[in-house]
């Protein structure tokens, strides 16, 4: 993998747009730079995945997965709702391009390509949804699950077994 100048320019474009988007969503000033950073990382993963010849859908999935993970970590660190970073960071992967191309080819009466882009749009939306779903449920399990109880119980049981063996 090589990081070229054009890639750096593109990522700074993602940073700028996500920063602007978080202003558009009325995010308070102290959080907009972090939101921009999340967006830039999402853009970086997306571009890198495309560089490795992965398809649009898989690139969107990986990007959304990274963004969701970082959003959850940032939300824990800065004690804010996850949505703050998630909504802004997810934007570069939202299939606006597919939507436009679908309409464009419909108007050109090219049904095959219009259908292709419609399915691609739905696939990307689904991939984003799955990525958020996955990370959310993992963090929920980590937070709400009784890991300590499970662990301690296990230990206690082992101890009691040892005692009984003696």
């Amino acid at each position, binding site marked *: 993998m090589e990081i070229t100048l054009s890639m750096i*320019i*593109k990522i700074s474009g993602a940073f700028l747009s996500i920063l602007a988007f978080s*202003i558009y969503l*009325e995010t*308070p000033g102290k959080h907009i730079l972090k939101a921009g950073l999340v967006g830039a990382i999402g853009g970086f993963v997306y571009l890198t995945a495309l560089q490795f010849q992965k398809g649009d859908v898989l690139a969107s999935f990986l990007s959304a997965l990274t963004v969701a993970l970082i959003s959850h970590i940032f939300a824990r660190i800065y004690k804010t*709702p996850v949505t703050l970073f998630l909504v802004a960071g997810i*934007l570069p992967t939202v299939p606006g391009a597919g939507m*436009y191309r679908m309409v464009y080819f*419909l108007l050109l009466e090219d049904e095959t390509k219009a259908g292709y882009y419609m399915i691609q749009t739905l696939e990307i939306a689904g991939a984003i949804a799955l990525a958020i779903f996955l990370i959310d449920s993992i963090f929920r399990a980590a937070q709400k699950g009784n890991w300590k109880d499970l662990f301690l119980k296990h230990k206690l049981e082992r101890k009691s077994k040892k005692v009984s063996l003696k």
Partner: protein
Amino acid sequence: MDKQLLMKTAALAGEIMLSSGAETYRVENTMYLMLHTAENIELAEVFVIMTGITATLKIQNEDTISVVKRVNNRSTNMNRILEVNSISRAYCGKEISLDEAYSKLTKIKRRVYSNLENRLAVIGICTGFAIFFGGDIGDVLATSAVGVFLTLCITIGEKLHFQPFLQNVFNSFGIAFFSIFLRAFFANINLDIVIISSIMPLVPGVAITNAVRDSLQGDYISGCARILEAFLIAAAIAIGIGLGILSIGNIVI
């Protein structure tokens, strides 16, 4: 403790969060925790869907208090969600009293940024995405110009009190129309990049994200409603772009 005021405070907090685009479960959770600061509770339940709030509180040997609130206007406003979150945390942690919490909730600012900053942000989103999608300097400048035109469309729509659906159609129509208009004068603009970057402020990213998070919590009604919202926004953008291309495209392309 004043039970009526407690209910009023919880309902206000819920209303602000729901109208600012918070997830349904977050609204329910916040109101539930606030109501449960009362003593001798027999019953305290909150039921929230995307378009309204119902809550009821029964204290032992007292009358039941119930609230139904309909939330009509929804937009995304992260600042208001954050503020309510911190106020409810402070109240539930017994750092501030109920009266303080209520007066703080009524004083939350509607907007953090001025109208001008908001419009500049829209232009910034368009321009940034033109760079991200790999446009050259000409494309980026053209996208900024389309962004300025988009803010004009948004302002006109706000003045005329358009419904959200019509507003989206109008905005994307303006984008397609003006992009193709620019293309007529500057032949080497990449029309794909300009239009795709310019519709990014309109795409339903917020709706998709919230739909997933609501469904995950088991709030299927709100989840479905938000998915429908996302589809409607997408359809509006598609119709607008299509109309824009039809209106002027034959002359230029």
